[in-house]
């Protein structure tokens, strides 16, 4: 990842869109300060509320993680303990951060289960172990955990990627409700442009470890500027395609493959696949340019 800069306002939903290897998950881990050994943040500032996260000690960071800053991963399975009841796993988060009274923690965990639409009237959901829950139900438990301490920012890394399309729709609907009801900021990371519609206020598109375009959602989707973003959005299959009447229809694709993050070439990393490349693209890296209010693009076509 290289030189990513962006801000996120209170109550705002920022979608981070990128394909595998684009650096989107690395970005999430960097923000949580959970990068694997060997990776380190060599430069930069992460200003969260009134403090720089990079200047905090591990102990101070632990209090923030799960407190004001929560994380939801793609696969809920590994983030839940297999030997603990779902409700208790939520209560545990509250106990660790906010409240030492177990009864109150449990009561609050029940109401959180209600909030994520896992009705606890019969306490069946509260008492269930993760293996007794479906993937969608597990993801709801993880979301309830993330909400437990009323965080001001949730980072969700592909929260619907391991779910069926109908279950994924329900989880996205839940995020939409939560966005309206709490003034909570959400950083939603995904490879699928369709799930950000109706949810994200702004979208940052990543390629080769850089944010190549960041703008309000309507700008990115209706008037994409960066050649990669235009090509990527063209890849979304048309719902009206009909094989019986048009048998030779093919999908739009981007020629070539995504760059290997370990071996990025000189210049703009999209240049080998870019139909609009000029000579400069192969030797120099473009810088981010504000082409319109709140819309930034990293491409020589726009003066980068």
């Amino acid at each position, binding site marked *: 990842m290289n030189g990513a800069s962006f801000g996120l306002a209170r109550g705002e939903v920022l979608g981070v869109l990128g394909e595998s290897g684009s650096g989107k998950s690395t970005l999430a881990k960097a923000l949580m300060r959970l990068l694997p050994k060997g990776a380190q943040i060599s430069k930069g500032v992460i200003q969260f509320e009134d403090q720089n996260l990079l200047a905090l000690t591990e102990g101070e960071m632990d209090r923030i993680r799960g407190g004001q800053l929560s994380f939801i991963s793609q696969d809920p399975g590994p983030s839940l303990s297999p030997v603990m009841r779902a409700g208790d796993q939520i209560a545990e988060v509250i106990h660790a951060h906010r409240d030492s009274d177990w009864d109150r923690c449990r009561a609050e965990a029940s109401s959180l289960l209600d909030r994520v639409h896992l009705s606890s009237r019969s306490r069946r959901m509260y008492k269930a172990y993760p293996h007794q829950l479906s993937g969608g139900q597990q993801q709801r438990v993880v979301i309830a955990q993330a909400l437990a301490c009323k965080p001001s920012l949730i980072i969700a890394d592909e929260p619907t990627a391991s779910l069926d399309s109908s279950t994924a729709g329900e989880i996205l609907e839940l995020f939409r409700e939560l966005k309206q009801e709490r003034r909570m900021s959400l950083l939603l990371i995904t490879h*699928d442009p369709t799930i950000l519609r109706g949810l994200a206020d702004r979208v940052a598109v990543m390629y080769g470890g850089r944010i190549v375009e960041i703008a309000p959602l309507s700008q990115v989707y209706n008037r994409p500027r960066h050649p990669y973003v235009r090509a990527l959005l063209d*890849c979304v*299959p048309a719902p009206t395609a009909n094989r019986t009447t048009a048998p030779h229809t093919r999908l739009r694709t*981007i020629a070539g493959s995504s760059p290997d993050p370990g071996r990025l070439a000189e210049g703009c990393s999209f240049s080998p696949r870019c139909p609009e490349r000029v000579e400069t693209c192969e030797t120099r890296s473009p810088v981010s340019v504000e082409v319109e209010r709140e819309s930034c693009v990293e491409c020589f076509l726009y003066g980068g």
Partner: protein
Amino acid sequence: MAGEAHRVGAGVGPLLSVRGLTLEYAQRRVFATERTETLALRDISFDLESGKTLLLFGTSGSGKSSLARCLVLLERPREGQILYKGEDLLSLGRKALKSARREIHLIFQDSGLSLNPRFTVEELIAEPLVIHKALESQREIDKRIRTVLNQVELGQGFLERRPSELSGGQRQRVAIARAIVLRPTLLILDEALSALDLSTEGQIANLLLDLQEQYSLAYLYVTHDLRLAGVMAHEVAEIRDGRIVRQDMPTIVLTANLQPVS
């Protein structure tokens, strides 16, 4: 609808004809004295013709993968017939079965798990030819491997690579190469496009469409995702709780299933 057969396209006899397939999983719980039986598939029937694609749509737990596994005899159904070119695979002898197996292949979602990590791409593609003793001489084998590698749009430079040195899309291309190297008639694609990035997914889908046109391949495309139904499929069958509950043109199933998200 179950029990009654539906046809994909029209023409001479179907390549694959499934009749009344019923599969059950028996399990004995710890400390339980009786076995519990779960019906994974109930009375499944459909036809599939050469050159056509039937998309089998269902959510997780619907039985769609059980059906895919049944068709390649990784599961033994309790009842029913799997008629391939008019012959029931479930009652074929070993020798006849082996020749049918040459023509039917299964491609999974994550080829990373189904490709032997110690083999090179060349060895991986050669393996089915060797197992089935499909070609006489080493020269023919080499020639076939190179042809197939070109067909899946991987250059000769990939011959020496191992799966760990390939991207997800490249691994899926190798899995397709392994499947088509024996010149099959039917490919079962079990979520074969689901783990890929958007721009790669289109490349692999187009490759499958091109190969289908060229060899008149039949595809049974098993997925939980209808986004590619219009481009890929001639017909969609929806499976729920082990039954086919609906079978129709993609456009009609799509209108019924795609509730607007926002």
